[in-house]
């Protein structure tokens, strides 16, 4: 982890979303890790925003950011050449290292949970593992990274709540099919989606991991603001930090709300 100053090398806008590429001398990252990003706009907003790494190449790092409020709006409006600061890479990562080529791996993403899963999918494909990618959205126009995911040449399934693309319904409709066969499940997206995924896969031989969100101030473990309740041992619950022990947690230890 480092605290760095970056320059925006490109910024591509798609509706509410923006793909931002930064140039800088950053440390290598792993899928599931994130940066705390802040532009040079002074005290409002004051705190940096946590954004997952979408992809990384030599001296260039990419993010996909959705405009949902004051901080993300400023980030998506950054233009090529503008400066910003960032701390990262932060947090743990999706534990993919031990996955074997013949194992069944399911990636389930929705909304801003899709970018870190794209990074994971790309890494897995690089290792010779071909995961199944399930992406869900409310409607077709909110689907993210469809061409990029297709480009990886893996089994890709889409669901939309209004049926405007892929299967009509939510991701768990498709995920259900893999209940008995999946070896690994990695999910990132809205809380409700993660909870349902966890209900399907938190038993048997399957290892299910979810990437959680919580409001953050520092992102590097010192403020204790990003607490999430985790069952550390049977019957023993404790707060852990989403930014440090997470954001990726074994779905079986998360104490779901």
């Amino acid at each position: 982890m480092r605290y760095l100053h970056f320059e925006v090398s490109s910024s591509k806008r798609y509706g509410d979303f923006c793909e931002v590429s930064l140039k800088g001398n950053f440390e290598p990252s792993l899928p599931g890790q994130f940066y705390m990003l802040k532009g040079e706009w002074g005290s409002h907003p004051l705190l940096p925003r946590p954004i997952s790494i979408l992809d990384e190449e030599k001296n260039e790092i990419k993010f996909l950011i959705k405009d949902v409020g004051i901080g993300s709006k400023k980030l998506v409006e950054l233009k090529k050449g503008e400066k910003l600061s960032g701390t990262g890479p932060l947090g743990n990562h999706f534990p993919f290292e031990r996955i074997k080529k013949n194992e069944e791996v399911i990636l389930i993403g929705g909304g801003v949970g899709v970018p870190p899963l794209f990074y994971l999918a790309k890494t897995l494909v690089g290792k010779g593992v071909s995961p199944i990618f399930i992406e869900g959205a409310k409607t077709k126009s909110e689907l993210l990274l469809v061409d990029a995911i297709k480009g990886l040449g893996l089994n890709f399934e889409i669901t939309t709540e209004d049926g405007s693309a892929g299967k009509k319904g939510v991701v768990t409709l498709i995920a259900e099919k893999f209940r008995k066969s999946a070896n690994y499940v990695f999910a990132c997206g809205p809380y409700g989606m993660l909870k349902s995924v966890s209900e399907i896969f938190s038993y048997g031989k399957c290892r299910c991991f979810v990437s959680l969100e919580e409001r953050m101030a520092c992102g590097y473990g010192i403020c204790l603001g990003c607490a999430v309740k985790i069952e550390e041992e049977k019957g023993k619950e404790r707060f852990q930090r989403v930014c440090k022990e997470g954001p990726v947690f074994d779905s079986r230890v998360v104490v779901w709300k």
Partner: protein
Amino acid sequence: MEIDLKIEVGKIELKNPLFLASGCAGYGLEFEDFFDISIVGGVCLKGLSLEESVGNEPSRIWETPSGMINAIGLQNIGIKNFLKDKAPLLRKINTIFIANFFGHKIEEYVKVAKILEDEECIKALEMNISCPNISEGGIHFGVDPLLVHKVVKEVRKSVTKPLWVKLTPSGNIKETARSAYEAGADALVAINTIPAMAVDVEKMDFRISNKVGGLSGPAIHPIAVKMVYDVVGEVPIPVIGCGGVENAENGIEFLLLGARAFQVGTALFYNPNAPVEIIHGIKDYLKRKKLKSVKEVIGRMKAKNKGKDSCS
């Protein structure tokens, strides 16, 4: 020209007047990826209590214009775990560590202080009195001058290490400062966070699960400056300024008004490099003002401090 940043707070000599504020610097071990922790004057560790404390339910933080509200709930590993897991590591680091601590009863304050007294890596004790007193119906120790006197006096009797008292901005800070001084405090820190609240109008609910939290960051800086001015005028012991410092200028404001040192808290969250920049900035300021030592800055405006407050 060699620039001298050394200062003293009572008997403690410091490399420079910059402390990392309690709760914003963990246990002093979390910054090694950003800068060498031995460059700072001192580190105030996360508040310790007798027993481990799990902290509040989320949501614990909410951002406000130029500030943030937190209700972490004084989560900490407890004094025993601190001595076992953290203290041995701190002993190897060449900077001053100050142990921030709290209790919910006077006896708890005394017990923690006595344990800290024997730990060699701790050079002073910083009492957080912004805590509800469960023996007296939950009223905060820090707002009642009589309670402040009582709790500080009991701790003072039981330890010999320098005792700093961290004042809350709630209540009348001149009175609580005087009480703490008369009860034997060696230095005062002003200020802790300011009680604050925010409401989510869509969900019609509180933004923070604890409802009330503490406001910190640049938003509170001018309030802290006024309170440091008040406390410096009230007591003859060293005062340490705290609240919204994010650059050298903010820290120097406290020094000019008579604070001996200052602390940096929330700024570390959005700029982990802030201590390096601030120390650099103080050197630049001294050069620009053709001053050799930061001591020449401390209290330089004190003569101007005199005079009555008037209505604004």
